[in-house]
């Protein structure tokens, strides 16, 4: 018994160490991102501008252009990874992500509706609001179907896939109806970009992404028990239906907040939880923060690479995240000998 306790403590310490390591890596990537850009504001100048200067060009570059981009990248990465972890836990499915359940495609449809029909009222907030509304609508549809039938993972995933196809087709229909310029705008939105975010957008997104986090962490033990199956979880006192329903709503809220200002950034919601799970296992108390940090690191690294390696042209974020994430994911998948899921 003593041995098991010792082993558990040891394992927990290692997990904690991994999380601390991720924080250090994230901090390192932030430093690199802060010192890179088209201007001559380098490593030391950016810190001077960050802490000492109150006005001037360097101050404006760091505070108005680079820092919002960095903060939003971390927020979006953390949010998508967190939502992915929750979806995978409540649906007990390794393929679950904000994309599998149609949340991203419905959000994309919301953006397309705003771009096509807004006319002069077209603004980033209108696109974001519409994307957010449709993401929530998709999650409510899934919930409705689940409530009517039963909240089993199979029902929810099948409903999610149906919704994904429905909204993808609707987006395609509107794109087909759009003018050349509207189609361009839609394509760019689906690529994902952090260029258009400022502190105001960060304020809105951070509230929506960070508010559900304490609830998620509080449910981490219930998520662990869900892995053993619905019957076992119920026997151990978990209200499976409630946690599944609320989980879908919270994860959808986080997803919608993460992508409504930046466009569709694929893959992070699926891969970040898997990377974390491969390294530290399936205990959600550690898994949730670890996958959030991995998501933040991946998106920030991808954005920094995307805006610097072919400067001043930007390689869209949605493309670079896959370029970075896929090889890393394959590496871990090949290295892992035992089945981790």
């Amino acid at each position, binding site marked *: 018994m003593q041995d098991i306790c010792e082993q558990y403590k040891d394992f927990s310490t290692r997990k904690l160490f991994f999380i601390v390591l991720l924080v250090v890596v994230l901090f390192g990537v932030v430093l690199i991102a802060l010192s890179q*850009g088209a201007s001559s504001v380098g490593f030391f100048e950016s810190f001077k501008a960050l802490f000492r200067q109150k006005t001037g060009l360097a101050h404006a570059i760091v505070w108005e252009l680079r820092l919002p981009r960095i903060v939003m990248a971390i927020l979006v990465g953390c949010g998508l990874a967190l939502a992915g972890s929750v979806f995978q836990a409540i649906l007990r499915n390794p393929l679950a992500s904000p994309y599998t359940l149609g949340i991203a495609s419905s959000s994309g449809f919301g953006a397309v509706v705003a771009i096509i029909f807004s006319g002069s009222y077209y603004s980033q907030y209108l696109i974001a609001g519409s994307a957010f509304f449709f993401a929530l609508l998709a999650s409510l549809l899934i919930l409705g179907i689940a409530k009517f039938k039963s909240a089993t993972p199979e029902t929810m995933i099948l409903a999610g896939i149906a919704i994904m196809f429905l909204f993808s087709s609707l987006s395609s229909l509107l794109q087909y109806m759009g003018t050349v310029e509207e189609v361009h705008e839609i394509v*760019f939105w689906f690529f994902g970009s952090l260029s258009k975010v400022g502190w105001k957008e960060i304020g809105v997104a951070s509230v929506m992404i960070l508010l559900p986090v304490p609830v998620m962490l509080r449910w981490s033990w219930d998520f662990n028990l869900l892995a053993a199956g619905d019957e076992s979880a119920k026997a151990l006192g978990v209200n499976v239906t409630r946690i599944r329903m609320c989980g879908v709503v919270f994860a959808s809220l986080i997803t919608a907040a993460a992508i409504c200002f930046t466009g569709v950034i694929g893959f992070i919601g699926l891969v970040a939880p898997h990377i974390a799970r491969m390294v530290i296992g399936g205990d959600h108390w550690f898994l949730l923060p670890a996958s959030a940090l991995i998501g933040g690191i991946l998106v920030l690294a991808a954005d920094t690479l995307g805006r610097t390696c072919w400067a001043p042209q930007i390689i869209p974020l949605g493309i670079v995240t896959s370029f970075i994430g896929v090889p890393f994911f394959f590496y871990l998948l090949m290295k892992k000998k035992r089945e981790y899921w």
Partner: protein
Amino acid sequence: MKKYIVTISILILFFYSLVSAEGITGQATERKSIRIRDAGGRFVEVRLPVKRLVVLTSDALEIIRALGAEDLVAGVYSDIAEDPLFWPKLKDKPKVGSWKGLNYELVVELNPDAVLCYAQRPGRDMEKKLKPFGIQVIRLDFFKLDNLEKEVEALGRILQKEKEARELIAWYRNNLNQMREMLRNVTSRPDVYIEGDSNYHTTGPGSGGHCMCALAGGHNIASNLSIPYPEVTPEWILMRDPNVIVKVTTRSTCDTCYAMTGVGALKNIRNRIMARPAWDHIGAVKEGKIYVIANEIWTGPRAIIGTSYLAKWFYPDFLKAFDPEALHKEYLENFQGIKYQGVYVYPN
């Protein structure tokens, strides 16, 4: 002797007239099809006469109207209904689809001689599908100022409106030459940042906007980039510190700028650009040299009007007497047969 001379002369004349008549007949047979170079650079044979046309793009339709060939249009793109004021005679023609694709059954039913569309869209399968019905596909873009004259000339030959095509080309040439002449003595070119509808997406080499900027005597700050419509970082724009910013937009309060009466929508777009983070450090923002221009007079048959506005904005002192609005009015009233109205730029 005199009799012989007269008889021989008559015989010579008779033979000559026969030969000439045969020559004309031969020419007529040859002219049943002409060879043109389309917008994709391919040489294609077009059977004449082309008396019924289905047109999938507004750019082509504008040129057809300028050539006085409106009566030949049998079918149009469906979005024309959104711009009824600009197309008073064509708005009720049968709608067959868009620049991206068309309803083949509707087109076949209209029985046109040809379908006029862009070089790239709809895809090449359109030729295969329409060939069995004897319908030709003519691909002409009319959206790049570089190729505009050649394309107008080709369409003039196809529609047998060569004279009208020559007049339109002459109008383009005269105005371009006049602008070049006015800018001849200009020594320093202003740095210009051009932004499309999507924020931070500029126009690089290979785009119509880049070509217009150069024609108007500006230096496009994205001229060294490698793709036509790249997204760039706001920090790079800040560092290049452009003297003039041009925002091209399709957004208006009405469906089109032709129906617009107030400058409010374009003014809002300009205000939003001026309020972008850290942009108060850019020279163009400090001096208020931010101009919003509607897509209608950007690349396309009216690119020359857009280019004239650019020149006026780049060199306000040089071109004090130059009036792009008058040029636009002349084009709409003389070549399009509609009255001048609408809001196309802000500030004017």
